[in-house]
């Protein structure tokens, strides 16, 4: 299935992409599968969304979709059907922080 992901601006610049990226994933549609696919397509993003050592989401990034904050969901929880179907993107958001 094809999933849409919108990266924050600094990671779009790092990955040299404009706008959303689309990645093909195996079922089920989970955060882990989506991020694995994003990192496989854009290896320069390895370690920038999830910490290399812990595989935990970086503290100042959050995951949103369908007007829900999914940041604290299990990485193996199912994403909303609208994300799995490609109707809505998974949003990777940089926290408004730093003054």
């Amino acid at each position: 299935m094809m999933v849409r992901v919108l990266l924050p601006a600094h990671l779009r610049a790092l990955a040299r992409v404009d706008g959303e990226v689309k990645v093909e994933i195996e079922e089920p549609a989970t955060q882990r599968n989506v991020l694995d696919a994003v990192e496989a397509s854009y290896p320069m993003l390895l370690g920038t969304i999830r910490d290399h050592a812990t595989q935990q989401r970086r503290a100042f990034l959050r995951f949103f979709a369908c007007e829900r904050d999914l940041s604290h969901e299990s990485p193996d929880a199912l994403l909303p059907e609208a994300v799995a179907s490609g109707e809505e993107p998974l949003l990777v958001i940089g926290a408004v922080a730093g003054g």
Partner: protein
Amino acid sequence: MSQVRVLVGTRKGAFILTSVGKRENWNVSGPHFAGWEIFHLKGSPVDPNRLYVSQSSGWSGQVVQRSNDGGATWETVGNKFLYEGVPGTHQWYDGTPHPWEFKRVWHLEPSLTDPDVVYAGAEDAALFRSNDGGKNWEELAGLRKHGSGPHWQPGAGGMCLHTIILDPSDAKRMYIAISAAGAFRTDDGGKSWIPINQGLRSEHIPDPTAEVGHCVHHIAMHRDRPEVLFMQKHWDVMRSDNAGDLWTEVSGNLPTDFGFVIDVHAHEPETIYVVPIKSDGEHFPPDGKLRVYRSRSGGNEWEPLTKGLPQSNCYVNVLRDAMAVDALDKCGVYFGTTGGQVYVSPDAGDSWTPIVRDLPAVLSVEVQTLP
């Protein structure tokens, strides 16, 4: 005609400043990696177009970039900095054990002989090496597992390994410095390390002459005399004439011996430069006067260099990796400030001119002298 390429890391990107040997007119390229903190960038001595960049952000951690064409284009290389084995703990600010956690790379030091070999100094303090141009990194864990490691504490800027010096006369000898553990030397290519802090005295630690625990800010060496080292400690300017086995203070007549940078003239091994900073609580020049001090006697006797530098109302800092020299004759000296200025002296410090005035806060300055 010779050229110089000045590599500037800032809080919000990297800049590359180039000029011909007169060093009067400059081309400014950048920002590269706009918005990211660029702690350090440095070129390979054997392939000057091979550049390495440490790029980091509070949002997305560490990235390493590499260029094979002098900074015209870049490619992302490896950023997997994993401590060997179980990382263990060091001391936190309050003295309690704290797990070793990788945060960022402060300094990248390319090999003197192989453009694909590069060392990275990390926070929390550790030394990594890549043998494949930055794609993969392996910790030289003998340093962190030196017996004193659990007692190391961070300085105010974090527990960073910020200085890496490769001995041009001995491929197995290397020096590193950590805030606030001190200086260390290896004589076997990084397998084992000894602390080289004898002679340092730090009044702010429980034992002022302890084997480790000193807040070393920077160390410099002249390649023709690799056994002679110069150090800007938190307080005190020091020198060692025996590869760090013993240090003696050479602060002499400096107005204050606090500071961050120290460097050595390219052709005169006893000519050294520092930028005195008022104190650890007031990170700006004394009396609002930005002065580089030069010693032509390897320390103790210092002269202020002020021509072209602001002598009133100047309250910038000059951070530890933000001074460098070129190899032209006359030797050029360069430094960057937290106010975003990068100054050049094309006459070994006698006079200064800003190359740029309004960059983001400067974190590092390196210079390449190109044919």
